[in-house]
């Protein structure tokens, strides 16, 4: 098992772990990754990965516009909004 760089992982996951929790999660991840490492014992060289268990074909619907939500429906849960937009801090300088 390779070392776990908890700072890198939490940054990728957009989580800002408090300093005192970093070691806690790092150790927890190490334990779990070590536990799942038993998979390395199985030879899977010629096995295809399984993505969808029933492997049935996706059914295709008619390409017809259906209206589910109004703009108001979509924006009603917005933490911050301005007119018909979600509002966030300035992104472009």
């Amino acid at each position, binding site marked *: 098992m390779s070392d776990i760089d908890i700072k890198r992982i939490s940054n990728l996951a957009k989580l800002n772990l408090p300093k005192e929790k970093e070691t806690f999660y790092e150790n927890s991840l190490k334990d779990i990754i070590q536990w799942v490492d*038993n998979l390395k014992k199985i030879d*899977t060289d010629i096995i295809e990965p*399984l993505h969808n268990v*029933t492997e*049935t074909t996706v059914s295709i*619907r008619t390409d017809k516009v259906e209206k589910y939500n109004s703009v108001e429906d*979509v924006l009603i*849960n*917005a*933490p911050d909004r301005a007119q018909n937009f979600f509002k966030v801090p300035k992104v472009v300088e």
Partner: protein
Amino acid sequence: MKKSISQIKKSLQDKSISVNELYQEYFSIAKKNSHNSFNFVVNENYNDHNIQLSQSRYDSGKPLPLDGIPLGIKDLFCTKGIRTTASSKILSNFIPQYESFVTQQLINDGSLFIGKNNCDEFAMGSSNETSYFGPVINPRKSKNAPNDNFVPGGSSGGSAASVAEGACVASIGTDTGGSIRQPASLCGLVGLKPTFGSCSRWGIIAFASSLDQAGPITNCVEDAAYILNSINKHDFNDSTSSNHQRDDYVTNLHTKFDQSIKIGIPKDYLKDLNSDVIQQIEKTKKVLSKHNIEFVDVEFTTTDYALSTYYIIAPAEASSNLARYDGIRYGLREDGKNLDEIYLNTRTSGFGEEVTRRILIGTYVLSAGYYDAYYRKAQKVRRLIKNDFQRIFQDVDFILTPTTPNEAFKIGDKLDPISMYMNDVFTVPTSLAGLPGISLPSGLSSNGLPLGIQIIGNYFQEKNLLKLALLAEKELAFNE
């Protein structure tokens, strides 16, 4: 003895009870919420209009299939206009503007929603202790420690507890690695996880999309068939929804099998189990052998790898699914100087410990340099697990296992994640293979707590699975 859906419908039809009287019977228990099994109970008058409509349909002699039946709904299903939180702080103020496919079918069939059931946060847990709204208490007590509170199992722990306490006739849960079957077993109820692709995932807050499946938690097998009839339908909005012809699961449920049945018992599942649990299997074997049912020993070669495979695939899918919670469009937003700070502060504050852990595991196994070694490897082993089941189903019609390795444990007793993950050792392989499984109560442990058996069927064999479960239920005659 609690009444079944067919008994309740009969009482409503012959006017020995009105829809309102029935509703109040359950609502009076639900509103007390004494086991914390609900995150939200509807207000006093919420269902008034629907109760009237339901009563008039009974009066005209044309009731809908689930007319007037009070249901609990796991707080993972989007319900239009009713707060839906996934038991997470990050969604604690979220009010969906649309109805999930499954709950829409239940509305169409005349049922009445009594509230949203507590669950583990984003359905990640096996004890309902990870909920932002606090743990759910199992209504069942140990005879040796009657003052102690036990977990109801999870993640659909609130669903199971609410049915067990009599706050609803049935509840709709979701099962990713055992989240319907395990709490049903620990609360002495029936829990059905249908074949993956049976019930649409549209409008269910996603945890692990290749595993999540909706299903009922009920007092009896026949009730599970009634609910399945309502929710098991093809839906174009879920690309993994199967469009095969569905059975009527209630009709002929009580008729005998016209062919002989062979059930496999996996020897490798029974290694090192306590005698209370082994006894459930022995007892089931004994009572079913009278019915032209043959039992044979079977052995899986992949059991030792199932939990590892699950704890790579499920967190990987979760880390991807939960990337959408960023504080911009809905849910919690924690302030920040720029967009990135909003993301970081919102997600760090909004997710609880177990969800954070699984996002981190998922991110790790999907990250550059580790993807092939972990995620792709697990997907390959998943195929071997599926093949292992298919090999066994060439010889047998069903597989019988315990649902859980132990009875319910005390709230707060299991602190390390791996020992918690072990609770799902018998339910996870079925989930990885996408097969249908049903848990039904089989007896009590020496402490007087419920124990359950799991019957696993082949793909889309829910009708026969329910028939066999009904026979087992009758024969085991589980009455305290």
